[in-house]
């Protein structure tokens, strides 16, 4: 059972450049931490796939085990776990997030 869920997660994070597991949707976040990450990604002008864990309890628990990370949101870039809200915010402020996105040649609509 675990493997099926992990496979599903791997498939998502490997077939999309940027994936955000969050509470709510990008249009309608239902948690302040999720909203903060959506805001950062939107500000950077990158496309991302939002996955609402509130709609799927199995994914909600599975994603926490997958990364050994107990909280949502979780951001993935090119299949790699980047972090939760605190790390994403810190990386955005230092410019590391932009560097990471640039290093993967992921297009941003409002390039600096």
């Amino acid at each position, binding site marked *: 059972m675990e493997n099926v869920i992990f496979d599903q997660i791997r498939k998502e994070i490997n077939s999309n450049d940027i994936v955000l597991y969050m509470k709510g949707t990008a249009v309608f976040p239902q948690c302040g931490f999720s909203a903060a990450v959506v805001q950062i990604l939107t500000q950077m002008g990158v496309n991302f796939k939002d996955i609402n864990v509130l709609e799927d309890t199995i994914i909600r628990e599975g994603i926490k085990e997958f990364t*050994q*990370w*107990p*909280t949502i949101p979780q951001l993935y870039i090119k299949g790699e776990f980047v*972090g*939760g809200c*605190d*790390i994403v915010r*810190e990386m955005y402020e230092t410019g590391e997030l932009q560097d990471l996105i640039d290093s993967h040649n992921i297009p941003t609509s409002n390039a600096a």
Partner: protein
Amino acid sequence: MAMDEQKIKELITAGIEDSVVTISDLRGDGDHYAAHVVSSAFIGKTRVQQHQMVYQALQGKMGNELHALAIHTSTPEE
């Protein structure tokens, strides 16, 4: 439901060697905290690994009794 500030500090200090932990109660409601953890054990680790160490020290309480804990980690030189 909510967790005591002192308890959070104890768990992190016990779980991560050589750590100096500062906890602040962000809203004064005993439910939204920020933890600043400085430890030499973080040297050479990525941020994700550093935060995972803090979560491990909290023994599964994060996301359960502990609703909101903003984490900031650094090494003594930073």
